[in-house]
């Protein structure tokens, strides 16, 4: 459902510093109309700061912000055609649900009849009609978050901004609301920019994910692309749980060498030719075990040190060259701690990174 190609939000050379600390450095980002873009990163990476800059809640130090082709760099938050949903819901405690949802419209001096109509419509979409007269304190966490979304919805905005909206909810509710958010996006087709540190949310919701670190976008791509072809070592390590198995070694004569571990790279799709120091990464589920390992680009023997059955799959912790090496195998397999296993890896499933600039090879 990702948009029609027109640009909805565009950020040009955005700088933001708090005193001597540069939080965002020359950031460029273009969000397509109707796109669901997730800003993902660990805390302190600048993702919420970027969202606040788009919302106009922070004054930028340099650069420009465009929404629907209009330069809104100096515009007030309410003039930008955005709606925002916060982690803490930020409902006005003294106002009823209806009062909360209509606050923005009342400030904009929208006629009363139209306010009623719009609130009713949003309440219908979010199924919160029975709650309209209640105070926020009489609502559950999930209901509060729905009202917070409703508050953005009634204002008929171009862009929805979400700042970790599900982080305060318990696991089950989070999964439910995640699905609802996705349905809401399919239904409204608005541009949505969503900040989270939760990989699962990012992977499931996003049309594209922007992974941020130290105020710089590391990779901007679809979830599948980010997972299978991480652009650099940071992204490779950040995405996936357990993380990608990484081995440090050398690329020489078409082979990757790290201690006992030697892989032919004939089937690896190089983006740039390189020899020398490098990292070799392989996802736990791409490690072949037992009979499947036969005929792989490299075969080796490993010992199960820790076995973690998750039901659907089982995670097995082993070590290669003294480094942790995770396998993800079927939940049906019977592996016990201390068992010896045959494992195999195909270079086509792997990711190689230059040891110097840590970019994908």
């Amino acid at each position, binding site marked *: 459902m990702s948009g029609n190609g027109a640009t909805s939000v565009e950020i040009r050379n955005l700088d933001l510093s708090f005193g001597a600390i540069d939080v965002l450095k020359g950031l460029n980002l273009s969000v397509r109309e109707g796109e669901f873009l997730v800003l993902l990163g660990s805390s302190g990476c600048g993702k919420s700061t970027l969202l*606040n800059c788009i*919302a*106009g*809640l922070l004054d930028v130090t340099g650069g420009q912000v465009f929404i629907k082709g209009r330069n809104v760099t100096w515009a*007030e*938050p*309410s003039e930008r055609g*955005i*709606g*925002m949903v*916060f*982690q*803490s*819901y*930020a*409902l*006005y*405690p*003294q106002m009823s649900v209806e009062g909360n949802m209509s*606050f*923005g419209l009342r*400030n*904009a001096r929208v006629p009363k009849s139209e306010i009623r109509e719009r609130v009713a419509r949003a309440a219908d979409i979010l199924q919160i009609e029975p709650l309209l007269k209640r*105070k*926020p*304190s*009489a*609502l559950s*966490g999930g209901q*509060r978050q729905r009202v917070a979304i409703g*508050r953005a919805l009634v*204002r008929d905005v171009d862009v929805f901004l979400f*700042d970790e909206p599900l982080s*305060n909810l318990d696991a089950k509710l989070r999964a439910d609301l995640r699905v609802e958010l996705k349905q809401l996006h399919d239904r409204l087709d608005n541009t949505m920019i969503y900040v989270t540190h939760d990989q699962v949310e990012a992977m499931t919701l996003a049309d594209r994910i922007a992974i941020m670190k130290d105020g710089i976008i590391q990779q901007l791509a679809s979830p599948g692309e980010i997972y299978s072809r991480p652009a650099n070592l940071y992204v490779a390590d950040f995405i996936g749980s357990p993380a990608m198995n990484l081995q440090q070694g050398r690329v020489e004569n078409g082979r990757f060498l790290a201690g006992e571990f030697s892989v032919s790279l004939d089937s690896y799709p190089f983006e740039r030719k390189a020899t020398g120091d490098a990292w070799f990464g392989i996802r736990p589920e791409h490690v072949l075990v037992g009979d499947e390992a036969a005929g792989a680009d490299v075969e080796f023997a490993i010992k199960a040190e820790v076995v973690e059955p998750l039901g659907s799959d089982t995670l097995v912790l082993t070590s290669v060259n003294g480094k942790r090496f995770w396998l993800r195998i079927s939940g049906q397999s019977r592996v016990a701690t201390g068992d010896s296993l045959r494992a195999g890896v195909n270079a086509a499933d792997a990711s190689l990174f230059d040891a110097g600039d840590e970019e994908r090879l």
Partner: protein
Amino acid sequence: MTEATAVFEGAHGPKPRRTFSRRNIFLYGTLIMVALYYMLPLYVMIVTSLKGMPEIRLGNIFAPPVEITFQPWVKAWAEACTGLNCDGLSRGFWNSVRITVPSVIVSIAIASVNGYALANWRFKGANVFFTILIFGAFIPYQVMLYPIVILLREIGLYGSLWGLVIVHSIFGMPILTLLFRNYFTSLPEELFKAARVDGAGFWGIYFQIMLPMSLPIFVVAMILQVTGIWNDFLFGVVYTKPDIYPMTVQLNNIVNSVQGVKEYNVNMAATILTGLVPLVIYFVSGRLFVRGIAAGAVKG
């Protein structure tokens, strides 16, 4: 299932505690002693104020009154003389009301807006402004007494009620601003952000979002200001003149008058009357300390 029907042996259920354990005797003993120590002066005051002068001259200050009389209270309120005026403390009471009410309203109104601006609108120079304000809280009053006399004289308010109101409002500003700033800082910042996204301006957010959530801190500020201004003596005596002396100054003048017999019962009654307003404020507003007024705004 056998355990369910079994008779418990040994320790089970709540741990038994002795009422007169050594710990309890020590704890409550100390508390009662301290409470008595604090209560005693008040007891002496009340008892003395209800006695006639002949009974007081017997010298048993702890003895309860044999013959209860309210005459000293009537005299303290309506008849006691200070200088040429012989209408008792009532004059001082109304003066104090006329000083306290506007001072409290003006200082809280300004300080709450100051605190809100400092906490939420990080304007240029906010930190410098705040530092100066806090610094102001540490300057001893005595240093400023005379300069303020000159200032008030120049603007023609020296010796008037409004001059004193201005002085009280200004002197309450640093501590009140600090109080409000800290309270508004403790409110979730996202509420402020949400209101801005919803298009509310400086005053819109203050009146529609912040004020309704701030009852507790307004009550605290009111208690601070009412008691502080009501109990003030120094500014009252320096910046006003006899006709408009606040109650505290007038109390002093009654108690310390050198002519005639010392009427201890009238003095005690006058003192209690003067202290009544702060006392009532504490009792009444204690209930207004509604906690969790912001509950439901954030996670819960």
